[in-house]
């Protein structure tokens, strides 16, 4: 199988690490070769962060380049737009509609662009946008946005529900499992 590419993008501190761990486990269990590339250090302090997940028969590069992503999973709208050029021409964006102003917007040096979902669609991208923060809060914690997004992403994968559940159980601490299962279902069925 040709290598498939998933990018997880967001703002440092939003919990993309758990999402990539879950995907890594899921895809490895399916028997694929997997590489997951993360960012640590300074950019995690509220900066733009990206994680690359690649899987297939044999994966070489640990990173995803422009025009290569089959999926971009985004925790924040501006970040989806920032990484748009990394999406394949027929790729799918799954994004939370949450907006977090970056410091240049806060200080007034830049403006947060409007109508990003429509603009990304106009640029040819398939965009699935939903209010993941509201769904996460409905599940019991604003921190569960990552799992809401994973639930939504599962929609586009031809994998049995049990496989996702098994990876959730393996990667999420037991005391948060029920909450996260709820978050997953809310994302999936939204």
């Amino acid at each position, binding site marked *: 199988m040709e290598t498939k590419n998933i990018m997880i993008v967001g703002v440092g501190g939003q919990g993309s690490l758990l999402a990539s761990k879950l995907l890594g486990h899921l895809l490895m269990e399916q028997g694929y070769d997997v590489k997951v590339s993360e960012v640590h250090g*300074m950019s995690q302090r509220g900066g733009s962060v990206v994680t690359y997940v690649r899987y297939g028969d044999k994966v*070489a590069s640990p990173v995803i*380049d422009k025009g290569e992503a089959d999926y971009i999973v985004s925790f924040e709208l501006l970040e989806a737009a920032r990484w748009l050029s990394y999406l394949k021409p027929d790729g799918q964006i799954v994004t939370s509609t949450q907006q977090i102003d*970056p410091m240049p917007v806060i*200080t007034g040096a830049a403006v947060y662009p409007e109508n990003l979902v429509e603009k990304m669609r106009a640029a040819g991208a398939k965009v699935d946008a939903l209010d993941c923060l509201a769904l996460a809060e409905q599940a019991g914690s604003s921190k569960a946005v990552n799992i809401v997004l994973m639930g939504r992403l599962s929609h586009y994968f031809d994998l049995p529900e049990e496989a996702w559940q098994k990876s959730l159980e393996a990667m999420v601490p037991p005391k948060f499992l029920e909450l996260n299962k709820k978050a997953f279902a809310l994302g999936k069925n939204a």
Partner: protein
Amino acid sequence: MKQLMLGNAAVARGLYEAGCCVISSYPGTPSTEITEEAAKYDEIYCEWAPNEKVAMEVAFGACLAGKRSFCAMKHVGLNVAADPLFTMSYTGVNAGMVIGVADDAGMHSSQNEQDSRHHAIASKVPMLEPADSAEALEFAKLAYELSEEYDTPVLLKMCTRIAHSQSLVELSDRVVPETKAYEKNIAKYVMMPGNAKRRHPFVEERTRKLTEWAETAPINRVEMGGTKLGIITSSTSYQYVKEVFGDSVSVLKLGMVNPLPVKLIKEFAAKVDKLAVVEELDPIIEGHCRKLGLEVMGKDVLPLEDEFSQNLIAAKLGGTVHTGAALEDAIPPRPPVMCAGCPHRGLFYTLSKNKCTVLGDIGCYTLGAVAPLAAMDMTLCMGASVSAIHGFNKARGAETEGKTVAVIGDSTFMHSGMTGLANIAYNQSNSTVIILDNSITGMTGHQQNPTTGYNIKGDPAGKIDLEQLCKAMGFNRVRVVDPYDLKACDQAVKEELAADEPSVIISRRPCALLKYVKHEAPLAVDTAKCVGCKNCMKIGCPAISMKEGKAHVDNTLCVGCGVCEQLCGVKAFHSTKKEG
């Protein structure tokens, strides 16, 4: 059983399987997780040392005593530890010793982009360079065999993309070699001129032997494919080359980057029409090829700066370049910022307000340089703030003494700020040094240090008292402030700058991200009271923005530190804490 493992965790696993017994490191992105992961194996003694030089010397002591040892650091950390490295090359080892060094091409979290291979060449120490997690594990084990067989420390070079990528590994059991006997050997281990002179020829002979090993070593691997182009490469560059070209080109994949083979490279070059070297940063393999008289493509087409990627290789060497759509709108950048509730914020606001010249240092607080605070004038390397303020004030005297400060974190101060402080105490410049004590090593993700009172496993440990230390050095003026208290900060900075003797301010409050730190309820803005003056925006808090002309607090980010509240002239902020 196969496991998905971070490159750094795979190094730690390799150390474990190789029977490594002692590890001493200083944290530094992207090397930190090697030691953190190794500390999870109870069989290995692990510690955070105050700096990389100490760490390397601890590891040397352990290998001298007969146990396999290790130390890890980032590329710039190897500069700090270069002193022991260069002479350990002469002494060699007793039990095996391996040094992990992680480069950061692209500077994801670094102040420069230096290429550690220069240190390997200059110190004449062999260097291995893995290209994924499986190799990271395997090479860590191989490094001990080479170390003991060739009587040398061995450098294991990681880079951000190998260190921080997960890929599949296979695990084996731990095998601990028998402890080597310690025997006194003055000629080998006491490096005074007469002995060192006799050791130098050994070093040159060792390099000759290692070059011979490199000619046939399985980790230097030829993968013949199409012969129109032959590419010599290593590390993550190898992965990009395979991604772009697959088997359509031939590849010489080097697992050992110092010393480099001669015959192997010449033979490979003879089998292909055109030869190219793909290596990030400096043209080291390329320069070697040129010395061998080979015609080679390299830095004439590929950049000396930044990371590579598959599209870059494709564009420069003739593969398929992928492109994607883009929006017409300018996408505002999202640079890293101090977190909401960061204790550094109040102090930097004070320095900004007092228009201080701020000589900075390495840590989260380097973000004090970012707008709107922009309260930093210099950042160079670990500890430079404290040494440089002394030079700055000696050069200009009273002109600068009253408005210049050095800022340095608790961990960085322990690393190499203390010696600079000793210089101020000794040579008496009227300098003010501010220690930003957030009770942890923050930037690298919360490692303990000698001032925190805990060791790498989180168990109680020795604790250095910063106030006592500064006083013992001869400082009469040492005071502690809470950076959440803007009035107290302002008073302390003004008074210490005005004093006519050297002084230390300790700005003390634990990092807001520490698990044990209890947060207050988020604040909210009474929009009826807010006059939209933007005073609260001066601190650059990511939780505060302007919505329709009024200040707005993001309650998912705010930790209720109350610094913004102190700037509000109309008392528009209030706590969302429920009464009773």
